């Protein structure tokens, strides 16, 4: 099962595919779709209004937009899976020319799985924890009465296959079974030996066969064509293929599907439970389930948003290869413009429940015309960093794109405010004897008035470093110096003083504010703790802080649940600023926010730095954001410091392979978009 064999997307096949697409017409056609939700008070909320888009067979279409823009709702309407009180009130959804918008739930059952598959957003909650992975794949196969011993081709790939290989009869689509595989390999080897193939060449060919002939995934005609390619005569090859490739069992097919989705050692993996899988592996299992019944259309709702960038890249590469070879169309929902630009041929931009712009993805993102798309493109961090590169290449010191950074002179001359020396943290893991080293000998300095970013994937120990710098965790070894003093010695009064100067902003804007506290009380809390001012002066200070983070005074009486994520994060920043700190530790402070809001918060942080000379320790997994805001970068992996340098050094001339991998994985990192902006 090599990539090049399954993805033969050269020019001639692209033309053939286009011809087919024109002939068959759109697979999914959504016209003037309207979806309403009924609120608690019986009022209709228009979640989707007059939206139209279409998906052709074999095509990747991306819907982008911020949260609440109606992108997921539109896709779920196509699947008949609208949550709660949602219902289609107008327009049409045509699948293969058939109107399905007003189908009854029972009718949708026949479509889901076999015609339309779904890869859901959150890999953590979408697998049943008490069932083995294999059982969950099996459920999908059984629910749709799938034939587990024969491949089912999409109409598109059936139509296209004619031009490539002679595939006609049903029997040619029979899968290899695990029982017959040893015999097949033996016979193939014998055949090759008879042909006079010996030595390393024989070994190589056999190794290739062993790798490619996956039971439950590789079909008879592929085995035959592999043999023919290896030099076996046509009739002999077909004889062997017909004799030994006689169909797979349910277990073979499950393992075959999982291995297609990129899970190594699939037969063993199928017997494991979800908790034994990492997030990336669970997403692969979900992809296997989504594609198990060979749907014509796969709807992927933010399939990789919860994963690290390098894992995201691997999974999407694999999914693209798989859907290309199967001829499956993909409707892809994402908030990441870079990802959409990189993966989709057609893009649909949604805003407030409406399609504001759509068209070929590169064209739309390079020359956005609707003001909202323009705004979105301008704010997307991966694209902004691309603009920084091109601005540099043109020799311009473009003030607009470099907005989030301090100048280099300052970086060189300023003194150190936080000095981290050989920091180590070990945790005791349950049921394990040896200690787990979350942070392993990490040293760096934060210079006054600058931003140091720590980047790394989940589990790299970056947040642990942040918590130790905040003295929320005690290090096992090494020390953190603040203004030359070891913070380990701070107690009572001196600790309170340290807290006053070093403040955090946390990742989760929904968790870091007490839901029982009004905004006023939340921002006032640090002033109360430190006994600053009287009631009147505190109220004045809160007003001042709200103004600083550009929120109206009226939010004072409100509670966190009434505000959006970005607004809460601004409240958290206001609270951190209440004591006039010198250092702010931002632990993934913008990671949970939509691009536009993220841009806004970064802008705010930057303005505050320029005005007050704040120093930031900025923890993030998003290299694109780092490029925009940081002066110095520390790259961490598995608790160790991988690379440390100025932002320009790390981005333009990465020294370590890991850093290069991270940079490569930035979605759309190599595309230059927003050309007119």
């Amino acid at each position, binding site marked *: 099962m090599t990539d090049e064999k399954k993805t033969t997307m050269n020019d001639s096949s692209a033309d053939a595919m286009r011809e087919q697409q024109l002939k068959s017409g759109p697979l999914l056609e959504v016209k003037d779709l309207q979806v309403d939700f009924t609120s608690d008070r019986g009022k209709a909320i228009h979640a989707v209004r007059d939206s139209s888009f279409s998906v052709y067979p074999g095509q990747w279409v991306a819907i982008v937009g911020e949260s609440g823009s109606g992108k997921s709702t539109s896709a779920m309407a196509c699947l008949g899976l609208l949550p709660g009180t949602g219902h289609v009130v107008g327009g049409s959804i045509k699948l293969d020319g058939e109107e399905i918008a007003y189908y009854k739930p029972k009718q949708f059952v026949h479509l889901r799985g076999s015609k339309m598959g779904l890869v859901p957003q959150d890999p953590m909650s979408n697998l049943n924890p008490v069932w083995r992975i294999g059982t969950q794949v099996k459920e999908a196969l059984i629910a749709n009465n799938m034939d587990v011993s024969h491949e089912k081709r999409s109409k598109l790939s059936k139509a296209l296959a004619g031009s490539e290989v002679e595939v006609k009869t049903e029997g040619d689509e029979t899968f290899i079974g695990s029982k017959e595989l040893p015999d097949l390999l033996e016979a193939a080897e014998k055949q090759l030996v008879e042909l006079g193939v010996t030595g390393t060449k024989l070994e190589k060919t056999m190794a290739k066969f062993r790798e490619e002939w996956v039971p439950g995934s590789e079909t008879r005609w592929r085995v035959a064509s592999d043999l023919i390619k290896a030099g076996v005569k046509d009739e002999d090859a077909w004889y062997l293929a017909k004799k030994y490739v006689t169909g797979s069992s349910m277990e073979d097919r499950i393992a075959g599907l999982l291995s297609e989705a990129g899970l190594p050692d699939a037969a063993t993996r199928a017997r494991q439970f979800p908790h034994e899988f990492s997030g990336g592996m669970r997403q692969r299992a979900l992809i296997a389930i989504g594609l198990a019944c060979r749907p014509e259309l796969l709807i992927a709702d933010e399939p990789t948003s919860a994963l690290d960038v390098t894992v995201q890249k691997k999974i999407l590469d694999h999914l693209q290869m798989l859907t290309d070879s199967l001829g499956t169309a993909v409707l892809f929902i994402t908030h990441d413009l870079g990802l959409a630009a990189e993966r989709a041929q057609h893009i649909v931009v949604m805003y407030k429940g409406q399609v504001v712009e759509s068209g070929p993805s590169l*064209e739309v993102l390079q020359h956005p015309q609707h003001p909202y798309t323009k705004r979105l493109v301008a704010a997307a961090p991966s694209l902004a960093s691309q603009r920084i590169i091109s601005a540099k290449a043109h020799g311009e010191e473009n003030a607009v794109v470099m907005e989030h950074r301090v100048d280099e002179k300052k970086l060189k001359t300023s003194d150190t405010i936080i000095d981290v020396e050989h920091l180590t943290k070990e945790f005791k893991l349950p049921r394990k004897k040896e200690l787990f080293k979350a942070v392993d000998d990490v040293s760096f300095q934060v210079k006054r008035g600058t931003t140091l970013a720590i980047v790394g994937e989940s589990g790299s120990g970056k947040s642990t470093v942040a918590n130790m710098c905040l003295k929320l965790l005690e290090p096992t070894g090494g020390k953190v110096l603040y203004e030359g003093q070891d913070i380990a010695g701070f107690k009572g009064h001196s600790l309170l003083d340290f807290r006053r100067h070093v403040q955090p902003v946390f990742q989760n804007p929904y968790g870091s504010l007490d839901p029982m506290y009004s905004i006023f009380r939340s921002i006032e809390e640090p002033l109360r703790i430190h006994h600053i001012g009287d009631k009147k002066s505190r109220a004045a200070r809160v007003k001042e802080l709200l103004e600083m983070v550009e929120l109206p005074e009226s939010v004072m009486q409100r509670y966190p649940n009434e505000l959006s994520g970005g607004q809460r994060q601004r409240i958290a920043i206001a609270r951190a600023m209440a004591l006039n700190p010198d250092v702010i530790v931002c632990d993934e402070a913008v990671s949970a926010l939509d691009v536009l809001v993220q841009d806004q918060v970064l802008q705010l942080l930057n303005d505050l730095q320029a005005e007050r000379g704040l120093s930031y320790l900025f923890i993030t997994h998003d290299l694109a954001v780092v490029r925009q805001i940081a002066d110095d970068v520390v790259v961490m992996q598995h608790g160790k410091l991988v690379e440390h340098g100025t932002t320009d050094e790390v981005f333009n001339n990465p020294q370590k392979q890991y850093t290069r991998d991270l940079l490569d994985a930035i979605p759309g990192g190599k595309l230059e978009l927003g050309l007119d902006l």
Partner: protein
Amino acid sequence: MAENANSAITKEKPLETLPGQERYVAPLEETPLQQVDSVDEAAPATSMWADAWRTLRRNPLFIISGILILFIIVVALFPSLFTKNNPTYCSLEYSLDGSSAGHPFGYDLQGCDIYSRVIYGTRASLSVGILTTIIVVVVGALVGAIAGFCGGWIDSVLSRLVDIFMAIPLLLGAIVVLQMFKTTGSVWKVVLVLALFGWVSTARIARGAVLSSKNLEFNTASTALGSTPMRNLFRHIIPNSLAPIIVIATTSLGSYIVSEATLSFLGIGLPSTTVSWGGDISSAQSLLRTDPMVLFYPSCALAITVLAFIMMGDAVKDALDPKSRTA
């Protein structure tokens, strides 16, 4: 600019777009651009409590049970408003007489006025229910909060203590303890015994609530602001754990009233000198076949009261914890 864009497109994209996928830009007036992340200043401000209150106000269950409970409280406080008769004045000449003017429910075996006994019995039942609930909430929440907040061996010791009390059925325990103090009699005896065996369930719920709100990020945020653990406990953790405690308090209030009636029925609850529904039900049981109405009225009063409190508990639960709603 448009021209420029078009030329670039033709250069980079030789393939034409498929029908229906041509470039589309929505007219601006259809979706006017709003400011990024603006605050909706028109929306009314709501806290969790205000939200809960709004949900409650529109819940018919809450309205009905609220009116009933108010009525029951008024009856308990001012029984003389509802009847002129003395519940302890009994005359055998009226024994088991039917209803008559001024005595709508008739008389029991001892010739006491059933209506006035039902009215006066309210106070005993209600005071036992409310007093027990107060003690249970204070003790249970405190023990649970300490166990959840401190963790470690304190948690282990307190949790085992809770387990031990959990293992003793409330009624069985109450019977054993009350048997020992049979001679002394007042409302407090029953209240203390019910509280002794009732605090554990509240403690368990409080512990769980504290444990879950202890790990929320705003506590870390507060610590980083310079707040002490004790301040966190009282300012953040306990207020955030109150909702489930309030829910269990309202629901169990009704069950304490039932328990009191049961104990009084068994003759070990309130002393026979105190007018109580349980006592009356007990003395009426022998008349079940001949004069069922004597049994019916106090049982009915008991059932209505308990139902009102349980309905109230359900409504409060719906309002404070929308996730637990079944429909």
